[in-house]
């Protein structure tokens, strides 16, 4: 199920904002990895990279500007109130820094912090800040600013829910360190600091609550933002990472229409573009005139799926959900709309993930079984099963739900399809006014970042971030085990159980992993060679988000 360029608004309601955010990567799932990665290290060897698209080969060149085509526009730059989708996170990466950053191996490393260390039972995390860092307005980074940021995030209707349980209380330890107390052990705490809630905003912006004038410590500072047209940033001459960034400036242009964005790249109107369109990847991946960076193979990717509301009739009936799952021929669906790029994936986790089990029990395509289940369930629902399936307004997604509807019809399920404008779509998801919607989410650097989307504790009206409203105590137990255990083996078992419970409960009908890609002309170098302060490799482009800091112009 390919996504459209303009799904920003659907994703907008914290779609990856407060929890999922910045990237992928969960290789460093265990506590030892987390702990070691979050201590202050300066002697790590740089992770060797193979020559690849987006990796510069020559000496970096200073100066010049680039134009980047993004798939969506955002509503502002204040992490506590604005909806950061992949474009929002890319904007944010330009003007802000996060307290931690995801390394290429998927572990969370200190960034604006020099260390993030827990107490023995993982309920108190002490964040020590990097000295000598200043915001764009010249004010210093210190503990007061960080505390004010976290308080602002906690108080926000948007990010507050995601921080429940993660942040309980906080205290200033010294001018350059704060201690965060969690209401339970949070193994993945450093990963949270690499997401939307990890961006540190200047005190002046916090006080004004300005969503249009970001004041960060980032590599670039804002020159101009004209919503729906462009955002221009210029190099921060006082950036704390010596020598970076190389570019004098970056202009971001939201170009919602996939083909228009691709044409813009081909015509040289833009230098880089972000896309989820598998057709664009198919078109350009073998063209030597372009560099095509695909999603990293580590970690948990965005999934494309149909979300079912388990609190309304008839999708509150497990037998109906089983029938719906058995009736979808995912292979055929992906073949039709995946452009040969997308691959079927009937699990929350990608192939190769330690959390993926050999058989999670997800229902396979079986039309006869679907028909039998429909016959079994129909008497409980007035004699027939009627489903309303909707997607956001987008021609390609409309084609996809038409295909799904025809599959369900074959199983004897009467299906009506419709398109819903994006904001209504989000409202309906959080308020529960839907039966079946296409959706995409769940990219995360650690599976615990998805807790808020799946936990029964967030499934209650009036506003539920667990959109499916699936309430399964066994699922919650597994999520809690994964959240609180420092034993990698226990975590693996816990999240395998999560995957199995989701296959049993069927709040989500899986289809494929999202096909994010960052594409560039050959005039731009090194745009996917993000590094950590110690020179080791960072994750770089992931799930539609990238950081322009290492890029330079070849010409």
């Amino acid at each position: 199920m390919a996504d459209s360029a303009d799904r920003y608004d659907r994703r907008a309601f914290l779609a990856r904002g407060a929890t999922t955010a910045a990237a992928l990567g969960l290789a460093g799932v265990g506590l030892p990895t987390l702990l070691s990665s979050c201590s202050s290290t300066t002697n790590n060897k740089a992770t060797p990279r193979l020559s690849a698209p987006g990796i510069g080969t020559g000496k970096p060149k200073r100066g010049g500007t680039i134009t980047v085509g993004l798939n969506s526009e955002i509503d502002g730059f204040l992490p506590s109130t604005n909806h950061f989708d992949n474009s929002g996170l890319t904007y944010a990466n330009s003007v802000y820094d996060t307290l931690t950053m995801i390394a290429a191996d998927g572990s969370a490393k200190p960034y604006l912090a020099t260390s993030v260390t827990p107490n023995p039972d993982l309920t108190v995390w002490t964040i020590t800040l990097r000295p000598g860092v200043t915001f764009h307005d010249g004010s210093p980074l210190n503990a007061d600013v960080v505390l004010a940021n976290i308080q602002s995030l906690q108080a926000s209707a948007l990010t507050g829910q995601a921080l429940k349980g993660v942040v309980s209380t906080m205290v200033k330890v010294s001018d350059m360190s704060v201690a965060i107390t969690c209401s339970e052990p949070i193994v993945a705490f450093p990963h949270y600091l690499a997401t939307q809630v990890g961006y540190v905003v200047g005190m002046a912006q916090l006080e004004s609550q300005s969503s249009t004038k970001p004041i960060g410590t980032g590599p670039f500072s804002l020159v101009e933002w004209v919503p729906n047209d462009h955002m221009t940033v210029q190099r921060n001459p006082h950036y704390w990472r010596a020598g970076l960034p190389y570019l004098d400036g970056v202009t971001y242009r939201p170009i919602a229409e996939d083909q228009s964005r691709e044409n813009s790249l081909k015509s040289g109107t833009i230098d880089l573009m972000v896309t989820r369109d598998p057709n664009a990847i198919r078109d350009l991946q073998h063209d030597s005139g372009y560099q095509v960076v695909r999603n990293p193979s580590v970690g948990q990717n965005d999934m494309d799926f149909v979300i079912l509301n388990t609190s309304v009739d008839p999708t509150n009936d497990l037998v109906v959900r089983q029938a719906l799952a058995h009736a979808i021929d995912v292979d055929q669906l992906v073949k039709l709309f995946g452009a040969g790029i997308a691959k079927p994936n009937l699990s929350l986790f990608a192939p190769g993930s330690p959390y993926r089990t050999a058989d999670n029990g997800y229902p396979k395509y079986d039309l006869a079984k679907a028909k039998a289940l429909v016959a079994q369930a129909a008497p409980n629902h007035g004699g027939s099963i009627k489903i309303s399936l909707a997607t956001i307004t987008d021609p390609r997604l409309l084609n996809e739900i038409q295909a799904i509807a025809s599959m369900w019809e074959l199983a004897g399920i009467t299906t009506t399809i419709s398109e819903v404008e994006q904001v209504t779509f989000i409202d309906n998801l959080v308020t529960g006014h839907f039966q079946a919607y296409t959706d995409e989410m769940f990219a995360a650097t650690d599976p615990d970042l998805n807790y808020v989307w799946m936990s029964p504790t967030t499934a209650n009206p009036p506003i539920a971030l667990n959109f499916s409203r699936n309430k399964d105590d066994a699922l919650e137990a597994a999520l809690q085990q994964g959240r609180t255990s420092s034993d990698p083996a226990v975590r693996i078992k816990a999240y395998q159980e999560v995957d199995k419970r989701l296959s049993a409960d069927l709040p989500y009908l899986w289809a494929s992993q999202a096909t994010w890609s960052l594409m560039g002309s050959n005039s731009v170098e090194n745009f996917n060679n993000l590094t950590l302060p110690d020179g080791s490799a960072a994750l770089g482009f992931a799930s539609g988000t990238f950081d322009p800091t290492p890029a330079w112009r070849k010409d």
Partner: protein
Amino acid sequence: MLRFIATRLVQLVVICFLISVFAFLLVHLLPGDPTLAILGPNDTPAARAVLLHQLGLNKGLLSQYGTWIINILHGNLGASFLTKQTVSNALGVAVPIDLELVIVSQVLALLVAIPMALVAALRPNRIFDRVATTSTFAMLSLPTFVAGPLLVLVFAVTLKWVPATGFNRLSQGFGPNLKSVILPSVALAIGSITVYYRLLRADLIATLQEDFVTMARSKGLSTRYILMRHVMRPSSFSLLAGAGISIGTLFTGAFVVEVLFQLPGIGFQLVNAIYGRDYLVVQGMALVAAVAFVVVNFGVDFLLTVLDPRVRRA
């Protein structure tokens, strides 16, 4: 003449007033609580208080309208609840784009349509007329959403002469500015060329059969002189009326082209605001767009009155 203008001005004021009432009522026509509809999941007490204050929703309807219209007359059209951008700022971005699109596309359309119509009308049903008529038929059947990508494919992607998307302001240089508007303008002009050509051709053919034209010819006046001096003016009324409607429509209705070329004009921003439920932007933009449409057509009416005394007497 003055009486005619005064009458039309009164009509204009009445129409603008009605438009303002409809635009104002947009928020109040929302089902349920308008603040909830606007804020959606961001409906917090603080946001609600700000919105109530901004809209004056706790006052009577007349009082609200009074405040709203006074604000508008002072240039305050409200602000987006999503981006915090004021509607005036958004219009400051959108209006120059649409103005330029309209001007360039209509100049292009007239530059092509008028000579074609003149040549075709002089020799109706001959080769040129047939080719031109057939071609314009074909152009009429070429929707903007097909013409636009084709133009981009040839001139932006293949030849790389012009950018595929985006708008360069005049302040960025005349060349870059023209390059950024030429393709969308051509895409818009294609439809107008057909309409203008056909309107003008038909009127020209009819006028050329009038007795005064035969008289002029019998006096030995040149064809060129007859066309320019005696035929063009009485043949241009339909063209002018058509252009008025077309310009008014294009000013707000170039949405498809604006999306294809990623130009944040009024139509583009209006549709985005509708999708985003940014009703205050919708309200402000709709008001400005409707008033602009009415004013443009008032201007065309006035021009028709100057050109054709019969309109004044009607």
